């Protein structure tokens, strides 16, 4: 079916096809284009012909008195209806294909987090392509220096996506695929790249000031190259002064799951106090006393938050005694140490 359609070079008006489905969509696009051109020619051509042919010749032209023609009207309601149903079913099939997720066993899963204004990617082996402070000055669309998401060639990739702040939309023109990224919820998207090279990612849901500067690149690599990339970028586990050790990384995961909604990392006030520069800082409490935030204080505050309430904050935190193991608490505190 798509063979004869491909005579018409849809790619002239579309980005490079990066997946098999993109090819199907382009075939569909050509069908729409041609059928619309034909309908457009009938409508506009008919209109032009009538305007020219039945131009007013004299001030008292007599015109035919035609009120309606049921057969004709039925025909031109029915034919568009049939065409539209064809268009609908064709589109529905493609949509189903775009949205039916591959099996978890054979797909490469990558997590995507949209933030204002960057894309963060996280791999199963711990690789994190995170931008901590928004976009840097040179990280612009014109002279491209963007977040890289490496993906293997010819293998399904499933993206599990969410957002930290407002709605974004993950759009890969080359794959003809797009999905909104919504805070408080996970959405997913999949593709199987068939062409090596780099593919542009855009944010297409208006998200504020630097909406147009949320670029990322999908780099499609051959399977061995991909494996090598995964190995090369594996996070450094060694403890170091600013770097994250393994303990802190685990702590971060606990933070992402349990603490993030009430404690920020960047100093903004949420429900509870921020963790930025928390470790070792002096804490003032509602009852007037104060203490340096050491490991004992932090541990107490996690297990029994009501014991010491930081000045100016509501006693809103639930006790975590029994919910976190000692190991986990240590990991969390390790993480707090690196949040500066």
């Amino acid at each position, binding site marked *: 079916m798509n063979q004869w359609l491909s005579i018409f070079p849809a790619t002239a008006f579309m980005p490079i096809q990066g997946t098999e489905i993109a090819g199907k969509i382009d075939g569909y696009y050509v069908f729409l284009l041609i059928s619309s051109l034909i309908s457009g020619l009938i409508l506009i051509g008919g209109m032009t012909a009538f305007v020219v042919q039945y131009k007013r010749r004299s001030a008292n032209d007599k015109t035919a008195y035609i009120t309606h023609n049921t057969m004709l009207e039925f025909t031109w309601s029915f034919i568009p209806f049939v065409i539209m149903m064809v268009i609908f079913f064709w589109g529905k099939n493609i949509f189903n294909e775009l949205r039916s997720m591959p099996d*978890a066993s054979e797909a490469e*899963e990558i997590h995507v987090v949209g933030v204002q204004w960057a894309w963060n990617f996280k791999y199963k082996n711990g690789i994190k392509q995170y931008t901590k402070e928004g976009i840097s000055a040179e990280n612009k669309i014109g002279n491209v220096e963007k977040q890289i998401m490496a993906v293997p060639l010819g293998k399904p990739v499933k993206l*599990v996506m969410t957002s930290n702040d407002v709605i974004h939309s993950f759009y890969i023109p080359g794959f003809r695929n797009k999905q909104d990224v919504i805070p408080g919820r996970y959405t997913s998207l999949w593709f199987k790249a068939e062409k090596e090279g780099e593919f542009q990612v855009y944010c297409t849901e208006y998200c504020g000031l630097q909406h147009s500067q949320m670029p990322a690149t999908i780099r499609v690599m051959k399977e061995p190259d991909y494996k090598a990339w995964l190995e090369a970028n594996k996070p450094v586990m060694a403890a170091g002064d600013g770097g994250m050790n393994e303990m802190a990384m685990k702590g971060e995961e606990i933070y992402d799951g349990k603490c993030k909604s009430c404690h920020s990392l960047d100093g903004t006030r949420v429900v509870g106090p921020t963790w930025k520069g928390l470790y070792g800082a002096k804490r003032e409490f509602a009852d007037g006393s104060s203490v340096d935030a050491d490991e004992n204080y932090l541990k107490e505050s996690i297990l029994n938050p009501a014991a010491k309430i930081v000045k100016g904050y509501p006693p809103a935190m639930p006790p975590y005694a029994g919910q976190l193991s000692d190991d986990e608490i240590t990991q969390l505190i390790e993480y707090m140490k690196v949040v500066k």
Partner: protein
Amino acid sequence: MELFIQYSLYIISCVCIFVPFFGFGLGPPVIIGTAVSVFAGNAYALIAQKGILKNFIKDKKDSGQSGGLVPVLEEAQKLIDGIENPGSVMKKEGHHGDEHGEHHHHIIPIPVYVGVLLVLLIGTVITVAVAQVDFGAMNTVIAILVATIKAAFVLAFFMHLKYDNMLNRVIFGSGFFFLMLLIAFSAADIFTRANVVKTF
């Protein structure tokens, strides 16, 4: 207004034909339900306002046939007359305020109002009483059911809708109808969303 009803009928039956075609889960009951009710409303409007039934009975009688279903149909027509022209049933009250001539407002006597008030109070008692017993999910259903009955009484008597013209009833009903569309289609999204599973 009939045009409006009929055209929406056409559209909804279109949807009706195509939606089950795809075997969707939630859509058909909602849409078929609305279509059937619109069909019923439309048929009623045709019978009541265009007097189809009346003409039919008249035709039959004129041609000398009065057996079979005709007496039954006559009863049905009387019922419709009762709903459509309540003034004819309660004429005495209705003409009291009409000394100045042309307009006919139906006046509902005070005892009817008192009766409605009692019904509403009893309804409130029932609502409260039922809520003390745990029927599980049925509690919401019962509560809404009782509330709807109460609302129907307020609409019919306090708001005089029972004695109002068809158009006002259709206008008010359309509000609920479109509300139903809003909830049906929002629910069609929210309760059919795929659950995204993370493996790590």
